[in-house]
């Protein structure tokens, strides 16, 4: 017997041979390693800080840190919006604001000195011939006249309006900066406890970066701990429906689990935190693991033909080994190419999934054969027989259709490509992290309400750097800054700007008994200097520190934007540039953008161009890989086309639908690269092998569509079904990813099965088809 299968045994790698010889050892060994990686899991940490998208050494982060130091700014600020539609100037509401502020001050981790609320921020005003500096709401008026007066006073301070107080007096905000390393979740929970104690008609909205990050973290765990297992379960059911063999199903799931546990365990063991991208890796790996379907699919056919388990295993691996190897390599290459992207979590995600794919590849040649050889042959044959021909019949009509209508398919394909091109041209790169949440989520609601009523939740800074000290006390420079502020405020998406100019004007007006004519920049340096000195003598020093640096050489313009869209910041910077060209800054001063909105813009650009670069690199690598595997340039290009069309169609649709091309959407291009080429490699490889034994173009193509094609369809459906689970996620990011992947998988399978036969028919005269050119 042994000599009988020695021929096919020779054709498989020794790893597979040894796995078939000692299946028990192999399975036990893999299990042991898996347990080892599993021990790392309890140390898991998450990182939801968008700042970590770029490395700490990146120019923009170094620059942002510097600006934060120059102006004593806080990295993390929560915003509590308080809305009373009747107006907040009632005794009850003001008392509640005071109580809430006081309670927030007592929460550990809150920067006590810089909590900004109506009861902690100073107002500077002229009153009865006196200069008065006191908290905006120092005492709560008990008579209506005094209440009206208070409202008028506060609304006349431009530094408060749209920041601390809405123009209509219905909304106020409390800004809560957090100490470095403070736990935002704990603080947010404490604030919610404080709010829960208050009864009244006010509505509260908790927003800001730290809150969003925490919600992220929770959703990520939800994704990993609940959605991924459900996806696994769904795959289980579909696999069982396809193969009716529990062992087979468990083997596929096992391969996925092994790769997920090894790669995630390694990531955790190396001390990397889980990021929003890597939290999706289990579902990705599960999907990629479905590649082993090709082995089971072929094994089913082979077993019926040779009726010997060992021989069937060896023949299967000999037949599908090549395509499995190259398709997994191509997938891995596609993901590993992501390391060229500057976005740290994307790099890690790429390596994570790339590594996981290689594990899947390893398992395909070890664990899978070891499991196959353990199966009960008679039961297996029985089970395998139940693989009915129903789906094959529609595959054969599909194959016939493609082989008979190659030209029409080509024309339709080209037409669709043109339409897709139109969609592609409409694609807009944008990252808006608030939009990663569902429209009715607390975060987006809070964001919407605050943007509608106050200046805006997204902040950016424009730092003006003068060439000499004290330049920020000169009228010329201050007028330049004011001019720029007014220019930027022309954009409706800019809700509020403020700078040292606003303080200078306020103090000038107050020193002139509130005469509106003095609501302007004074004409002399000494007036400005003494006004600022007075302000520094009277109010909280940090108020000024936020807008001018110590030597009065740099000034900081605060921008509050009503949108987190990266495009808004880019527009504003263009607008600034145009304006500064026409109105150059005094004394050759320069401008430097900073802040979270600017940061988002920078990494958004990184995402776009980084992804495009890595995608092109991946594309080139995959093309080279396919050409090497198929040993033909034309075959390589041909196998490449379904991938090309898939990507064009998917992103064309993204362009038409108006979905932002953001990070998760961009990363998908890499996945589609890996998967679509997968199908083509299987198709072309198997077709050429079969053509060598049966050199009839049409028959060989039909065979390929029906037999390996079934594996491809099964793979695609399984993949799509597994990802459909993500539609139930509560972050829109996951939902988008889920839907697009389903699209990519089904589309690339169909394009492979319809497009490739048509293309092969069209180009068969130029394709090297003779048997001697076919690689082993």
């Amino acid at each position: 017997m042994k000599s009988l299968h020695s021929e096919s045994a020779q054709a498989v790698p020794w790893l597979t041979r040894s796995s078939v010889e000692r299946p028990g050892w192999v399975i036990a060994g893999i299990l042991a390693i898996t347990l080892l990686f599993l021990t790392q899991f309890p140390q898991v940490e998450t990182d939801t800080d968008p700042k970590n998208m770029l490395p700490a050494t990146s120019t923009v982060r170094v620059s942002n840190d510097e600006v934060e130091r120059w102006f004593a700014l806080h990295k993390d600020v929560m915003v509590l919006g308080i809305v009373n539609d009747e107006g907040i100037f009632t005794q009850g509401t003001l008392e509640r604001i005071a109580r809430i502020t006081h309670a927030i001050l007592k929460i550990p981790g809150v920067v006590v000195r810089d909590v900004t609320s109506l009861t902690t921020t100073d107002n500077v005003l002229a009153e009865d011939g006196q200069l008065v500096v006191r908290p905006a709401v120092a005492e709560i008026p008990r008579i209506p006249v005094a209440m009206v007066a208070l409202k008028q006073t506060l609304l006349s301070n431009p530094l408060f309006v749209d920041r601390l107080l809405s123009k209509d007096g219905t909304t106020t905000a409390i800004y809560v900066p957090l100490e470095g390393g403070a736990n935002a979740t704990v603080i947010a929970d404490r604030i919610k406890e404080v709010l829960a104690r208050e009864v009244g008609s006010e509505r509260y909205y908790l927003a800001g970066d730290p809150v969003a990050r925490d919600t992220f973290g929770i959703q990520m765990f939800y994704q990993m701990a609940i959605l991924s297992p459900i996806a696994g379960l769904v795959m289980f059911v579909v696999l069982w429906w396809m193969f009716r063999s529990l062992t087979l199903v468990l083997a596929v799931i096992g391969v996925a689990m092994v790769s997920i546990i090894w790669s995630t365990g390694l990531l955790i063991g190396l001390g990397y935190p889980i990021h929003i991208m890597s939290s999706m890796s289990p579902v990705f790996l599960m999907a990629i693991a479905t590649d082993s379907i090709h082995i089971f699919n072929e094994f089913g056919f082979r077993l019926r033909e040779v009726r010997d388990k060992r021989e069937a295993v060896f023949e299967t691996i000999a037949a599908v080994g090549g395509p499995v190897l190259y398709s997994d390599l191509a997938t891995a290459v596609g993901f590993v190419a992501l390391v060229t992207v500057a976005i740290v979590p994307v790099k890690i995600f790429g390596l994570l999934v790339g590594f996981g794919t290689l594990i899947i590849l390893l398992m395909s040649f070890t664990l899978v054969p070891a499991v196959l050889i353990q199966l009960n042959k008679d039961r297996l044959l029985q089970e395998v027989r139940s693989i009915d021909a129903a789906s094959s019949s529609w595959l054969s009509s599909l194959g016939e259709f493609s082989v008979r209508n190659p030209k029409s398919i080509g024309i339709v394909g080209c037409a669709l490509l043109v339409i897709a091109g139109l969609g592609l041209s409409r694609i807009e790169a944008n990252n808006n992290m608030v939009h990663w949440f569902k429209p009715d989520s607390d975060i987006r609601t809070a964001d919407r309400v605050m943007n509608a009523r106050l200046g805006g939740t997204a902040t950016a800074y424009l730092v003006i750097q003068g060439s000499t000290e004290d330049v920020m006390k000169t009228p010329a420079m201050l007028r330049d800054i004011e001019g720029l502020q007014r220019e930027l405020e022309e954009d409706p998406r800019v809700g509020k700007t403020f700078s040292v100019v606003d303080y200078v004007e306020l103090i000038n007006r107050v020193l002139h008994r509130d005469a509106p004519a003095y609501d302007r920049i004074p004409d002399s340096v000494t007036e400005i200097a003494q006004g600022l000195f007075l302000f520094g003598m009277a109010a909280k020093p940090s108020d000024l520190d936020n807008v001018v640096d110590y030597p009065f050489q740099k000034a900081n313009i605060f921008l509050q934007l009503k949108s987190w869209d990266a495009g808004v910041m880019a527009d504003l910077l263009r607008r600034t540039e145009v304006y500064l060209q026409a109105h150059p800054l005094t004394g050759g001063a320069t401008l430097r953008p900073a802040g979270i909105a600017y940061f988002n813009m920078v990494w958004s650009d990184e995402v776009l161009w980084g992804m495009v670069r890595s995608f092109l690199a991946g594309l080139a690598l995959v093309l080279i890989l396919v050409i090497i595997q198929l040993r033909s340039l034309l075959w390589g290009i041909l196998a490449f086309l379904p991938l090309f069309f898939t990507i064009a169609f998917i992103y064309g649709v993204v362009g038409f639908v108006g979905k932002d091309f953001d990070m998760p959407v961009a990363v998908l291009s890499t996945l589609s690269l890996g998967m679509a080429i997968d199908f083509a490699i299987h198709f072309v490889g198997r077709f050429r092998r079969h053509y060598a034994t049966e050199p009839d173009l049409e028959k060989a193509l039909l065979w390929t569509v029906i037999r390996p094609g079934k594996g491809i369809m099964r793979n695609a459906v399984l993949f799509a079904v597994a990802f459909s689970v993500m539609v139930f996620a509560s972050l829109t990011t996951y939902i988008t990813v889920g839907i697009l992947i389903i699209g990519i998988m089904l589309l690339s399978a169909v394009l492979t099965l319809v497009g490739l036969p048509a293309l092969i028919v069209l180009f068969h005269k130029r394709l090297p088809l003779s048997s001697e050119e076919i690689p082993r």
Partner: protein
Amino acid sequence: MKTWIAFCATLSLIVLATVVQPSTAVAVDAMEIVQKSQAAFFEAGQDLRARIKMVLMTREGQQRLRELTMLRKNFSAGEQKYFLYFHSPADVSGTIFMVYKYPVKDDDRWLFIPALNLVQRVAARDSRTSFVGSDFSYEDVSGRDVEADTHRVLRTEALGNRQAVVIESVPMREADYARKLTWIDQTTFLPLKEEHYDLQGELYKIFTADEIRDVQGFPTATKRTMMNMKTGHKTEVVLESVAYNVGLGDEIFTERALRRPPEKWLK
């Protein structure tokens, strides 16, 4: 050996003293000690003239310099008048801050802004305000109503080579601290050190008297630092050419003098 024994003896005496003292007496004592301390620190002499250099320093080492002359005169019934004339920064030179301090009612404050030739009344406001952008609050500079806090003697201990009583003060009226510990020198009654704790119970400001000199028989803290532990910002104050009982006339502390400052005292 002798000094060692002496040290142990004093230490045990101190320990005994703190343990044995009845608590009611402590409460009375605490108030008295704080009063004496305020008198020694803020009210020494009939009047005072000093040139003050104030350096404001950020954590990164950036500095702002303030230089001023302080003229202070004590009046009857605990009333005090301050005249603070700023020499630098250059662009604020000539700015004057004048304060009438009353033991019970709110201060009267005036500001002279030379660029506008304007005398501006300034409302006395809550105590949290920083003094000219420094880490000192107005109360740190001119004193706080003793009755505004409850005081308690915690212990006596050596601080450097001085013996100090440690007093805990908890405000009953608004303050920039939620709790304050003061080390008061048992002989001079000058505050040697203060620790200010915030609402969260965290140490956020530390005052130290870095140099104490005898000026005309008045122990005077000629070098002081206030450090903000939270921001890393600190303010160093150096008193130069301190002179007591120089004979400041009442006419210096008037609105008219704001526009025509007494050059004699400002050199």
